[in-house]
Structures are given as structure tokens and as C-alpha cells.
């Protein structure tokens, strides 16, 4: 199934779709995730920027308010200074006009200054060039060394005053007074000094600035409250939040409730306190995200944060969110995409399966047709398969294949029909030949031993045609009580014509033997009968012998038959008896044959054979040969006639091996013993 064309097509489409879909999804997920993260980052930074902007705006407002108040106070202090300067100049004019001495005027001026109430927390005082107070509303402070006190920049008040007056004609000094009135917790003061050279002293007007600072602080606190409220409402992604902490890492606005525990925690990976990581990120100001892991929601939670630092207030604004939430939308999108892709893939595969079926279905039907083909009856004319005819109408390659199949089936039917006809004809001929073979076998003697009651002769013979029927023949029968006729013949060529000729010859010999006892005369008659009307020049070599079983004398005629072999009982070498009587029967009409005779000694064996034995070929086209037959006959001396026949035929077959038998084989062995029937009965 996995090697089928359909599955391979299907697999190909599946792999292409899956590959394309996979590549698209992976790249989409990456791009989507990056885009979403970028968007979330921008949003987080925007929140930070907005908050920073809000804080800085509010702070600038506060500063401007502060500057305005300070400028107002300053102007008030300067006006008072001008009043005091004018008053002191008036006292000086008293001295110039002689209404008062220098000392009286100075004393009066200082007395005036001491009594002057500026209202609120403002004080006016006079300071000697050495920094000692010589006039103050609070008389207890007179004589105090104010000039030795340090100002906010670390110089002494006296130093700062002298420097300012030298450079500008007046000086502003901010300092923290050690002496603080009851109910006031802030001793910081702001002082305006002017020079009064007439009395060789400095006039100072000071006022508390703590209330100004407090005003700003109150504003900042209000700002923080507003911020805490608005920052608390800022939501980053789902559960992300924004919070503010100061440079001492104390929270200004708290993180969201669910994440408030993170403030005291350290990062799981680096071990650094999370707040320190935030501070470092805020200090670096590179806008990079801080990745950290906090123990929240009952386990480690990966978070990321953006921190910016607002220097004027020393505030860090942190926007943080669980990392998962940033990529969650991307994941959700990809999941939807996967689902859609899976559905598209499923639909495509169904289509692919359908197309694969459309393509390979006809092939399978063709295959099924081909498998059914052997079971069909080819002997009848085929009407062709409906399925095949439908397929053959297609113009595709499959249609071509189907037409080829149809053509093949038609040819197959024709050929099988022809083969069947040939086979029938052959079977008919074969059957006729088998019958002919049976008939021909019936012509030959087939009971061995043929004369069990006659001890004088041991006779055996065999005939193996090269085809169904052959042209060889043998025969034997007693002419009378003492005379045995035996004959071996070989018709020219082989097969059916030879077999017919053989049957005629046998009949002619039999009929001739009934009329006369002389073999030569018998042969002449047979020859004349055969030659009488013989257009195809068939002929038969023939040996006809008559043995007198009382004397061992053989009267015979050899008409072209292979010379028989005499195997003497006395141990002499076997030899061919080469005399011939004349040409084969049927060759020339009217020929007279020589009469031949042979005297057998008791135990002598006469071997008569056809050329099928000596000319038997082996696969290398070598003949069995006269010499081998002669030698074998010598070895078989003393054996029974049957044993000799069987052994010689076996030896010839051994020689022929796989080679086709080229000619009919006939062998007849006849041994004569000189025993009287009476003696035989005695044995």
C-alpha cells in the first residue's frame, strides 16, 4: 500500500502542504510575536513617557510657584530694607544738621529698628561688621554672633554678606538658624543684607522659608496622591502595572496588589534585588527591558519591566508586566492559524486523495482486469471487458494503456485459437500415430521366451522406433517341426511411410515363406512384389534365415542388411558375416539373390541388427560403431539371448545420452544348442 502510486502522490501533496504551512506558520509566529512584543514595549514606554511628562509638568508648575513666592518675599524684604535705609538716613541727617550727636542718632535708629514689627515671621536686625547682633526685635538675641553661622553653601553668614555687598551692594543668604521659636520645626531662613556705612553696620531682614518649602512639599504630596491614583489605574496588557519609587528604593506609589510582594524579592536568576535591578536600568537610561523572575502567583513568574528615572524628584517610574502576557496574543493568533491550517490541510488532503484516486483508480482497474485475464476462456471470441472499453475511451496515457491491453487480449485470443487448432490437429495425428504404433507392435512377436518347449534355441529380439512408428521389423516362426524362420529388416528412412512399407514387407515375407522353403527364392518374390509399383523408390534391407534346429545349419539371404555377428561358443573372437545376396528389396525389380548358408556350432550365437545400433549418435555426433558392438558381443558370450539384447540396448542408450534417437533400433539374438528334444526333457 505504501509503495502504491496513489499513496506516493498523496504523500507528495501532503509533504508539500505541510512544508509550506509549517514555513508560513513558523515565520508568521516569529514576526507576529516580535511585532506584538514591539507594540507592547512601545505601549509600556509610552505609559512611562506620559507619566514622566505628567510628573515633570506638575513639578515645573510647583517650581514656578515656588519661584514666584520667593520673588514676592524677596521684593517685600527689599522694600523693608529700603524703608529702614531711608529711616537710618533720616537719623543721619539729624546728625548732619546738629540736632543730635552721632551716638544719639545711632542709638535712636537702633531703638527704632528693634521696635519695628514687620508682621508674620519676618525680622529686622542690625549686625556689626564683626557679625554681632546689636539690634533685634527679640532683645535677648542682641549680642549674638550671627555672622559666624554657616549659610547653606557652607560659608559663614558674614563672609557671604561681605561678598554680596562688595559685588552687588546687597546680599541674599540662606541659613539654618539654631534658635527656633516655639511651634516652628524648620529653622531655615532667608536673609537680605544691606550696608549702612553711616553707622558702620549691616541691616538684615530675614524671613522663614520653611513655609515656602512646605508649600512645595504640600504640592508634591498632592501630586503624588493624584499620581498614585492615576498610576494605579494604568493597566499594561492584562495585569501589568506602573509604579514609582524613589532613590532610596522606597515605593512612592505601590505596585498592583497581586505583585506587591516583589518589592522585597530578589531575581531568581541573578540573585540581585529586583528593586536594585530597576534602579540600575533607570540610571542607565537606555530604554532596554529588564527581565526578571519573581515569586508571584504561587510560583516563579517571568516578568519584564521598563524603568525611567525622573531626576528632579529622584523618582523611578517602572512599568512591568508578565512576559507571557506579551507573547500571549501572538500565541493565540498562531493557535488560530494552526487550527485554520489544519482544516485547510484536511480539506486539501481529501482533495488530494480524490485526485490520486482519479489518477490511480483506472490503473487499479487495469491491474484487476489483467489479473482476471488468465481466468478467462480464450477459446471463445472475446467481447472485451466493459471496464476496459470505458477506460480505452480516455485520451490519457491510461487510455493508451487500456487500448494496448485490449489489443493484447485480442491477439492473445487469436493466437490461442490458432494454437488450439494446431494442438487439436496435433492431438488427432498423435492419437492416430498412437493407434498406428499399437497396430505396428501387434505385427511383431511379443511373447518371450517364444519357444519354451524347444531347448535347442534361445531367441530374443527388441525393436525401438525413433518415432511413433518405424520402418524396422523382425519376425520368427517355425516353418515346420524342425525349421525356424527368422527375419530382420530395415525400410529406408523412417516414420509413417516406412511403417507402411514395413507392414507390407512383413506380410510379403510371411506369404512367400508359405510357398517355398528356399530363402533366396523367397527374397526374389518379395523383391519383385515390392518393386512392382514403387514410384517413391522405397526399399527394405532384409535378412531372411532358416535354422534347422537339429543340425544348426542356417540357410539365409542378406539383401543389403547390416552383416550379422557370429559369436562362437568356442571362445574365438566374434566376427561379421559379410557376404551379401543382393540389393535391398524394392530397389531393382527382377534381381536374383545369392543363396548363403552358415553352420552353427552348439552354443554359437547369431546377432542380427539394424544400422540404428551402429549409427546411434551421441551428442558429439559420434557413432556407436561396429567395433564397440563387436567387443560388447564378445563380452556377452555365454549370456542368455535376452541378457544380450538388454545389455546391448542399454549400452547404446548410454552412448546416445541426451541425443535424440535418430533411427529405429532392432536387435535379434539367436543361440543354438545341440540337444535332442528327448534329452531336453530329461534335463
Amino acid at each position: 500500500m505504501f509503495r502504491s502510486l496513489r499513496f506516493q502522490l498523496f504523500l507528495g501533496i501532503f509533504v508539500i502542504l505541510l512544508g509550506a504551512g509549517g514555513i508560513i506558520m513558523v515565520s508568521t509566529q516569529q514576526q507576529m510575536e516580535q511585532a506584538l512584543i514591539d507594540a507592547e514595549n512601545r505601549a509600556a514606554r509610552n505609559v512611562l513617557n506620559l507619566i514622566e511628562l505628567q510628573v515633570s509638568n506638575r513639578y515645573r508648575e510647583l517650581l514656578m510657584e515656588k519661584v514666584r513666592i520667593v520673588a514676592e518675599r524677596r521684593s517685600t524684604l527689599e522694600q523693608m530694607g529700603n524703608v529702614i535705609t531711608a529711616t537710618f538716613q533720616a537719623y543721619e541727617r539729624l546728625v548732619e544738621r546738629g540736632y543730635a550727636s552721632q551716638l544719639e542718632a545711632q542709638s535712636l535708629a537702633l531703638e527704632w529698628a528693634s521696635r519695628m514689627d514687620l508682621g508674620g515671621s519676618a525680622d529686622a536686625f542690625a549686625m556689626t561688621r564683626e557679625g554681632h547682633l546689636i539690634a533685634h526685635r527679640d532683645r535677648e538675641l542682641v549680642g549674638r554672633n550671627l555672622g559666624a553661622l554657616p549659610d547653606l553653601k557652607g560659608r559663614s553668614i558674614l563672609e557671604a554678606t561681605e561678598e554680596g555687598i562688595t559685588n552687588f551692594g546687597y546680599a541674599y543668604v540662606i541659613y539654618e538658624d539654631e534658635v527656633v521659636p516655639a511651634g516652628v520645626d524648620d529653622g531655615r531662613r532667608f536673609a537680605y543684607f544691606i550696608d549702612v556705612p553711616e553707622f558702620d553696620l549691616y541691616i538684615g531682614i530675614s524671613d522663614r522659608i520653611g513655609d515656602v518649602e512646605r508649600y512645595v512639599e504640600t504640592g508634591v504630596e498632592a501630586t503624588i496622591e493624584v499620581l498614585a491614583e492615576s498610576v494605579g489605574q494604568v493597566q499594561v496588557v492584562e495585569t501589568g502595572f506602573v509604579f514609582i519609587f524613589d532613590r532610596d528604593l522606597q515605593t512612592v506609589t505601590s505596585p498592583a496588589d497581586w505583585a506587591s510582594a516583589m518589592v522585597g524579592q530578589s531575581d531568581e536568576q541573578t540573585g540581585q534585588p529586583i528593586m536594585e535591578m530597576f534602579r540600575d536600568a533607570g540610571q542607565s537610561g537606555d530604554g532596554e527591558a529588564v527581565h526578571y523572575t519573581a515569586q508571584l502567583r504561587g510560583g516563579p513568574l517571568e516578568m519584564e519591566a521598563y524603568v525611567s528615572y525622573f531626576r528632579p524628584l529622584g523618582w523611578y517610574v517602572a512599568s512591568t508586566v508578565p512576559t507571557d502576557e506579551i507573547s500571549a496574543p501572538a500565541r493565540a493568533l498562531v493557535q488560530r492559524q494552526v487550527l485554520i491550517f489544519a482544516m485547510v490541510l484536511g480539506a486539501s488532503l481529501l482533495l488530494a486523495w480524490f485526485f490520486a484516486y482519479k489518477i490511480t483508480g483506472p490503473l487499479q482497474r487495469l491491474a484487476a482486469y489483467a489479473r482476471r485475464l488468465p481466468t478467462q476462456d480464450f477459446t471463445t471470441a472475446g467481447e472485451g471487458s466493459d471496464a476496459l472499453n470505458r477506460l480505452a475511451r480516455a485520451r490519457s496515457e491510461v487510455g493508451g494503456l487500456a487500448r494496448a491491453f485490449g489489443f493484447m487480449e485480442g491477439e492473445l485470443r487469436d493466437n490461442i485459437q490458432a494454437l488450439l487448432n494446431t494442438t487439436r490437429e496435433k492431438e488427432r495425428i498423435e492419437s492416430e500415430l498412437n493407434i498406428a504404433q499399437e497396430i505396428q507392435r501387434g505385427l511383431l512377436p511379443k511373447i518371450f521366451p517364444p519357444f519354451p518347449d524347444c531347448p535347442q534355441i534361445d531367441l530374443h529380439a527388441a525393436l525401438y522406433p525413433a518415432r511413433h512408428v518405424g520402418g524396422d521389423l523382425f519376425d520368427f516362426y517355425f516353418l515346420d517341426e524342425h525349421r525356424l524362420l527368422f527375419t530382420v529388416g530395415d525400410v529406408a528412412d523412417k516414420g509413417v511411410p516406412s511403417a507402411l512399407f514395413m507392414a507390407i514387407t512383413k506380410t510379403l515375407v510371411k506369404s512367400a515363406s508359405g510357398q517355398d522353403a528356399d530363402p533366396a527364392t523367397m527374397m526374389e518374390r518379395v523383391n519383385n512384389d515390392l518393386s512392382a509399383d514403387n514410384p517413391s523408390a522405397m526399399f527394405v534391407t532384409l535378412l531372411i534365415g532358416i535354422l534347422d534346429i537339429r543340425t544348426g545349419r542356417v540357410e539365409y539371404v542378406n539383401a543389403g542388411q547390416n552383416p550379422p555377428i557370429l559369436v562362437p561358443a568356442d571362445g574365438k573372437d566374434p566376427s561379421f558375416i559379410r557376404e551379401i545376396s543382393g540389393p535391398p528389396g524394392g530397389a531393382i525389380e527382377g534381381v536374383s539373390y545369392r543363396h548363403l548358408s552358415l553352420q552353427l556350432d552348439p552354443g554359437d550365437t547369431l546377432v542380427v541388427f539394424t544400422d540404428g545400433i551402429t549409427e546411434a549418435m551421441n551428442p558429439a555426433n559420434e557413432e556407436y560403431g561396429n567395433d564397440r558392438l563387436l567387443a560388447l558381443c564378445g563380452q556377452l558370450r555365454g549370456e542368455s539371448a535376452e541378457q544380450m539384447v538388454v545389455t546391448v540396448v542399454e549400452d547404446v542408450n548410454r552412448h546416445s545420452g541426451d541425443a535424440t534417437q535418430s533411427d529405429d533400433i532392432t536387435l535379434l539374438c539367436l543361440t543354438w544348442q545341440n540337444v535332442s528334444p528327448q534329452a531336453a526333457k530329461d534335463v
Partner: protein
Amino acid sequence: MSDNLRFTLERSGSLAVVGVAGRIDSSTSALFEEQMETVFAEAPDAVVIDLEQLDYMSSAGLRVLLMAAKRTKAQGQRLLLCGLSPNIREVFDISGFSAIFEIADSRSEAQSRAQA
């Protein structure tokens, strides 16, 4: 023509000389018979069959020769054989065909005797 049996045919006047080479047995005798038909088609006065190149002849071949002999005899033509190897000669002797055919030792002798 079979590889096992090859022929040459020369005609000089009314004399046809057929050379036979290879084997004549039951499978090739039909070819030999056809060849002899070709020879007789020109009605030669005499036919010489040279068997010098012949390796083997079975009784089927003898039958064709016998037919040729009967034909020439009936039509008053002459048929001579020549170039018989000892093996072939033995076949002729054994079968008694030596007495039926006019046999010359060589082709030239056969040709001169045929034209005499």
C-alpha cells in the same frame, strides 16, 4: 539450405555435375531430393554426383539416389557416382547398392565416362 547439407552444381553441355557435402539423413534427404529435381529440370544427358565431401549417408539418402537411378534409367540418361569415401563405400557395399550404381573413382573419370 541447411548447414548440414550443401550442394554445388556445374553444367557443361548436357552434363550436370552435382557436388554434395555434409550429411544426408532423414532430416536432410528432402533437400537432396529437391536438389536432384533442380538438376533433372534441365534434362541433362548425364549426371555425375560427386560424394567426395559427403560425411554420412543414411538409407533415406540411398532412397533419393535410387530414385535418381530409376529416373535416369527410364529416360535413357546416365548417372554416375564418384568420390565415395571408405565409409560411404561400405554403406554401398553392405546394402548391395554398389551393384546398382555406376561408380567412378574420381570426378574426372566420371566426367569422361559420362561423355563417352
